[in-house]
Structure formats: structure tokens, C-alpha cells
């Protein structure tokens, strides 16, 4: 009885960053499996011409749910809630996050948000609007049931969860650094998560406002988006993408942080190449992300000068991103590149994220985008940067830090072969979609002309390969837990501060005393005799 009470208190009433991080990992992996299942349904539908699902609304619902689940319940929780919660206090050598109780609230609100989303998919035909929920399709006239309302509230709850978590991260990384940890000496993951958090605090409320307006339009007789009352659906599109573009940077910036750590440790280097320019690059990507939202709206009838402006600023984002990719490659140059699974994932990230970025440059040109908007070219682009950018970075980080979190190791040979099959799978799935988009196949449509059968079939085969790779991954994790090959010494250099300390997995509490031994006040001290934390 007491054991049960202890278990309940430990996992439901937690104020411990490691436990909350573990919960976020479990939650995000579960959600990732759900999102993958939804994606398989999509690919099953699109494998052959003609309809497999009787109901077009169901197909639209699956597409919507796939997007929302992957973005809000896989990538963000794992990167920010999972890696962030576990690693930031360890890297900064502090006892816990700044607001340990609010940390728990962020997790449980996210659980509530998932329940609301699941509720939305079950009632009244579901919300078949796409993850962008544009009115008038999402207005009361075309989705008169409860589904869109549940969806709106789900995003509200998830938004509050993210904003509170971001406040927590910003305060922790900005104000809880010990004496010698000048801000430019923070680890790359801290810095990237800090910028991500700032983006979240500023952009999420704008989505909340837009969603509130949609809710009021649906139920309280307002006409924000209804031309009958002199409203305009394009207002929603502006508000959504003002949030939506920073959101996609929120998805990728933590991945940049993780890759920086993985590449540095995997190349046996003491320092990341050009760490401070990298940090400035991250900040500029974050800032520029706020002024490019129009590139998602090139086809709404925008003024040609506005299109020219948005194209130009979007092109500019390629520059800091290029700085980062070149710096990662330079970090690997001349180092002893370890033959570890995490380096395979990191190498895959560098290549495939760059490819995705290049197709992004194609789409940034307004003239080209007018042809390619809402085609599978766009789908291919963002799946390259997400499925192969963010997800590969998550795999890399997971393989790198798994022994830290759990104290056991995954079989490296199987992990490398799982990487190979996943690599083949995702590329087979998404590369053909470039051609489909170029030949005009629209997205979010249940059927397509027979001539497009070939590449669609190929893409669907790829998705099955990815699914099998995912099952293989689950097997690898399961086997590592039952075989219990315990970690004794981490084979990383002393510059990786999260690995310091005794014993893996790390203990419940962190050190009771700041082990750098320097005073907290001494933030301007440059009399550093230590190198640690210099990633």
C-alpha cells in the first residue's frame, strides 16, 4: 500500500526534472507511435489510385491528426520536455529547473491537451481541416460538430503548457548559471533551448488569440473571419502563420543544439568549431523567423511587393543556417570520428537536413511557390527537414544520452543497421514526393490521377520500411532494458558536463553544492582555471 502511494506521489506529483523528463520521453514516444500509425493510414490510402477509405472526411481527419500529433506531441515534448528537462540542470550544474512545480504542470497540461485532441478525433466526424485549421472550413458552417471546438481547446491547453515550460527554461538558462558560466559559455543545447523558449513565449499567444477568435466566430456570433460581417479568412491565415513560422523553428532549433553536442562528442573534439558564431546564428535564425510568415501565404492574393519582401528575407535565413552546417562539418574535420550509432544519425541529419533546406530555398521564391504551393513538393520539403532533420536529431540525442538516462546501453550493431533501414525508409518515402509535387499532385487530397501511381506506390513502400525500422528500434530499446549492459565509464571527454558525477543512471537529486565551487555572484570573473562547460 505504501509502495503504491510512493509510486503515485513520485510519478504524478513530481517536482524532479529527471522524472518529469522521463515522463515527457514516454509520452512523446507513445505519441510518435500514434502519429506514425496515422501516417501509415495516409500512405495506405495513397498507395493505389482510387479510394480506400469510404469517407473523405476521415482521410482529412487522419491528415490533420497526423500533423498535430507529430508536431505538438512528439517533437516538441521530446526535445524541450524530454532532453531539455533532463539535461539543462545537469549541464548547468544546478539542483533543478527554476520552477520545478510548474514543470509538472506543463507536463500534465500536455496530457490534458492530448486527451482533448483524441476527443476531437472521436466526436462528430472529427476535424478534417488540416493542422492549419483555416476558416471557413473550420467555422461553424462547415464543421458544425464538437470536433473543432475540442481541437481549439486542445491547442489552447498545449499552448499554455508550452508557454509555462518556456518561461521555466528561459529563467533557468538565463539566471541560474553559476559563477564562471558566462552566458556565451552556456552549452549549445542550453542556448538553443533558450532561443526556442523565447520564440514560444512570443509566438504561442498569437495562436491563442487567433484560436479564440475562431472559437468566438463559431459560437458567439462574432465575424472575425466571416465576410458577411466584413471579416476576412485571410486574417486567420496571417495570425496562424505569424505563430506557425516561429513554430517550425521551435521544432528545429533544439535539434541544432542536440546535433552540436553529438557532433562534438562524436568527433572527440574539445570544442565545437566556431561556437560563438554558431550561437549568433541561432539567435539570428530565431529573430528572422518572426518576419517571414508571408512565405506560407504567397497564393492568397498578396501584393507583388510583399511577395518580393517575404522571398528576400526567407532567402536570408539560409545564411546563418549555412554557418551552422559548415561549422558542424568543420568540427568533424581532423577529429577522431567515433563509430557510434549517434554519429550515423548526426551524419544523416547533416546531409538530409541540408537537402530539405535546399528545397526550402526553392519554395522561398514566390514565383516558384505560386506553382508549388499546396503540392507534394511542400510536403517533401518539410518532411525532409522534420522527419529527417528533427527526428534524426532526436534519434542521435537518444542514442547519445540513453546510457546517461537509463544506465544501460543499446546494442550498437543493431542500432547502426536500424539507422540504415530507417534512412532507406524515409528517403524512399519522401524523395519521390518531390517529383509528385513538381508534376502537380495537390496535398490533403484523397485521390490522384492514375499517372501519378508509380511514385505514390514507391512512397508507400518506403513508409512500410520506416514502420518496420521503428519496430526494430522498439525491439532494440526493449532488449537493452532486459539485458542490462550497465554503463561504467562514459567514453566522452571531460568537456561534456552532463556526464560528470557518479553512477548511471544519474541519481534523483543533483549535487547539494555547486561543484564548480565558484561564487554565484562572480559572473564577470575571467580567472577561470577550468575548461569545462566550454562546448
Amino acid at each position, binding site marked *: 500500500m505504501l509502495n503504491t502511494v510512493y509510486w503515485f506521489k513520485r510519478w504524478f*506529483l513530481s517536482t524532479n526534472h529527471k522524472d518529469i523528463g522521463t515522463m515527457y520521453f514516454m509520452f512523446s514516444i507513445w505519441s510518435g507511435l500514434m502519429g506514425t500509425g496515422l501516417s501509415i493510414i495516409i500512405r495506405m490510402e495513397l498507395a493505389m489510385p482510387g479510394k480506400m477509405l469510404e469517407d473523405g472526411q476521415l482521410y482529412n481527419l487522419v491528415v490533420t491528426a497526423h500533423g498535430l500529433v507529430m508536431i505538438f506531441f512528439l517533437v516538441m515534448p521530446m526535445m524541450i520536455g524530454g532532453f531539455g528537462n533532463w539535461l539543462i540542470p545537469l549541464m548547468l550544474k544546478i539542483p533543478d529547473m527554476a520552477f520545478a*512545480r510548474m514543470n*509538472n504542470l506543463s507536463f500534465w497540461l500536455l496530457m490534458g491537451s492530448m486527451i482533448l485532441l483524441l476527443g476531437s478525433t472521436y466526436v462528430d466526424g472529427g476535424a478534417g481541416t488540416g493542422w492549419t485549421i483555416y476558416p471557413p472550413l473550420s467555422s461553424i458552417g462547415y464543421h458544425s460538430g464538437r470536433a473543432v*471546438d475540442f481541437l481549439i481547446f486542445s491547442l489552447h491547453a498545449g499552448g499554455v503548457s508550452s508557454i509555462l515550460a518556456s518561461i521555466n527554461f528561459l529563467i533557468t538558462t538565463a539566471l*541560474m548559471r553559476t559563477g564562471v558560466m558566462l552566458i556565451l559559455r552556456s552549452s549549445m543545447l542550453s542556448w538553443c533551448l533558450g532561443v526556442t523558449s523565447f520564440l514560444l513565449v*512570443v509566438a504561442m499567444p498569437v495562436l491563442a488569440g487567433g484560436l479564440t477568435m475562431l472559437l468566438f466566430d463559431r459560437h458567439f456570433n462574432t*465575424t*472575425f473571419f466571416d465576410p458577411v*460581417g*466584413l471579416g476576412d479568412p485571410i486574417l486567420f491565415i496571417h495570425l496562424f502563420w505569424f505563430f506557425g513560422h516561429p513554430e517550425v523553428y521551435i521544432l528545429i532549433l533544439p535539434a541544432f543544439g542536440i546535433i552540436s553536442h553529438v557532433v562534438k562528442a562524436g568527433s572527440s573534439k574539445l570544442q565545437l568549431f566556431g561556437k560563438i558564431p554558431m550561437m549568433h546564428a541561432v539567435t539570428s535564425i530565431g529573430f528572422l523567423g518572426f518576419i517571414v510568415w508571408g512565405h506560407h501565404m504567397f497564393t492568397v492574393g498578396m501584393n507583388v511587393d510583399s511577395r518580393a519582401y517575404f522571398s528576400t528575407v526567407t532567402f536570408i535565413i539560409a545564411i546563418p543556417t549555412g554557418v551552422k552546417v559548415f561549422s558542424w562539418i568543420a568540427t568533424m574535420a581532423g577529429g577522431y570520428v567515433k563509430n557510434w550509432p549517434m554519429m550515423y544519425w548526426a551524419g544523416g541529419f547533416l546531409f538530409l537536413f541540408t537537402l530539405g533546406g535546399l528545397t526550402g530555398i526553392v519554395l522561398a521564391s514566390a514565383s516558384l511557390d505560386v506553382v508549388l504551393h499546396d503540392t507534394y513538393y511542400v510536403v517533401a520539403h518539410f518532411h525532409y527537414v522534420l522527419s529527417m532533420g528533427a527526428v534524426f536529431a532526436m534519434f542521435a540525442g537518444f542514442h547519445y544520452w540513453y546510457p546517461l538516462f537509463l544506465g544501460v546501453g543499446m546494442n550498437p550493431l543493431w542500432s547502426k543497421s536500424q539507422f540504415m533501414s530507417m534512412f532507406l525508409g524515409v528517403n524512399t518515402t519522401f524523395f519521390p514526393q518531390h517529383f509528385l509535387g513538381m508534376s502537380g499532385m495537390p496535398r490533403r487530397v484523397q485521390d490522384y490521377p492514375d499517372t501519378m501511381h508509380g511514385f505514390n506506390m514507391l512512397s508507400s513502400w518506403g513508409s512500410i520500411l520506416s514502420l518496420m525500422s521503428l519496430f526494430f528500434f522498439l525491439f532494440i530499446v526493449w532488449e537493452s532494458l532486459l539485458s542490462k549492459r550497465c554503463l561504467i565509464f562514459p567514453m566522452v571527454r571531460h568537456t561534456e558536463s552532463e556526464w560528470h558525477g557518479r553512477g548511471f543512471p544519474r541519481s534523483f537529486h543533483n549535487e547539494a553544492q555547486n561543484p564548480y565551487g565558484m561564487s554565484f555572484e562572480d559572473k564577470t570573473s575571467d580567472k577561470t582555471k577550468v575548461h569545462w562547460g566550454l562546448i
Partner: protein
Amino acid sequence: MGRTGYQLLERSPWPLEVAFGVLGLTSSAVMFFHSEMGDMVPLLMGLSFLTLLHGVVRWWMDMVFESTFKGQYTSFVILNIRWGFKLFVLSEVFFFFSFFWAWFYAGIGEISVKLMGKWPPVGVKAIYPWRIPFLNLLLLVTSGAFSQSSKWAVKCHSKELDVKMGRYYQLAALGLLLVSIILGTLFLYVQSQEYYWCSYSISDGVFGCSFYMLTGFHGMHVMAGLIFLVVCWFRILLFHFSYRHTCVGLLNAVYYWHFVDIIWIFLYFLVYLWPHKLLTGTWLWTF
């Protein structure tokens, strides 16, 4: 706390309770919108709201215990809480930003083309800004000034070691904050009267819905700010901020009150003065 100077919090059930309350409130709200389940809905809504309220109140009570009674609020913790609250206010600023965007989009943006440049649209009578809205502006600004001076009084009360002088400062703080609260309540009353007598409603096209959305959310924030100030008033009464205890709660409450005040100033210029075109009939500037 170890030797780190930060709080090592014990396990707390309040986050779970708040999350439950939010889930219940949102689900019952959806049911309410769709007239589902009849009589059960108000009950569910009430229960969820109470759960949420209880969780939130007990959480803040815990914070009061940790600060005033357990003394866990070192200067590091206070710094975290003050800046964390400022970041929260930043997120609120961007929440209002989205509604101001809608206001501008209709007033001078795309929609204004269909409105033929008329703002307010033809048929909507703008509220005369130099009566009630101006009174509200004066009420809020004065209230802000009084709350600011109550901060000063509390700081003196806290530093003062002589009991009698400390008592005087406490009474001063109570008086100043009370005036601030009364002025804020008056604002809400006056604004409610204006809502009652206004010639247009939230359903009156894009002007009506943007106007009421902006002013309505502002009013909700005023209510929240007032509750915060009232709680601080009682805490001053109960000597929570005496004997060198810091008054983080009051500092945050007054910061929030200033934020609410600044939003009203923006509202006054953009939502009241602009539709009335500053002086009757003429534009001071052209777009």
C-alpha cells in the same frame, strides 16, 4: 535547499489538480456550446471550475508558506520569480498583439478597402472618447500611481525596525493600496455601464467584435489584476511583508497592474480616439 541557494521543492499535487480542472472546464465548455447533456453541463462546469480554482489557490498558498513562513526565498529565487513573471506578462502582451492586429487589419488593412476607408463602418456610432473612456483612463492611471506608492510604503514598512514607525508605514501602504483597488473597481463598474449603454454589440460586424474582444479581454485582465491586489492587501494586513521580508507578491501585482494600465492607454488611443478621429470630424493625419 542544499547549499545551492535555490528551492528544492517537495512533491505537490496542485499541478495535477490544475490540469484536471483545465481539462474538465474545456470539455464541459464544448458541451455547453453544443447544448449537450442538458443539466449535467453546468454541474460539470462548476465542478471543474472549482477544481481549477482550488488547485490554483492552494498552489499560491504553498508559495506564501514557502516564502513568508519557511523563508526559502533567497535573492536567487526572488530574481527567478520576478523575471519569470515579466516573461509571463510578455506572453500576455503578445496575446493582445493578435487582437490589435485584427483591429488594424480591419481599420487600415485589407478589410478597410471593403469598408471604403470608413472606420467605424457606416452605421456604427463611435463612442465619444472624452467622457467615459477618458474617465476610465484617469481612473486607471491614478490607480497605477497609488499602487506604485504603496510599493514604496511597503518597502519602508519592511525595512523599518521600530515597531511604531513600521505600523505607520503599514497603514499608509494599506490606505494607498485600498485607494488603488477602489479606483480599479470603479473602472470595472464604469466600463460595465458603458457596455450596457453602448449602441453596438459584439455581433455588429468586424468593428463590434474587435472592439468587444479587445476591451473585454482587457476587462478580464483588470479583474485578475484586482484580485491579485486584493490578496496583496490582505497579506500586508497580516504582516507578511514586515521585518525584512521581501514583497515579491506585491511587486508582481503592481507590475501586472501597470501592464493592464498600459494596455488601456493603447486601447484608448486606438479603440476610442481613432474611431472618433481625435477631434470631431477631422483627421489629424491621413493614411
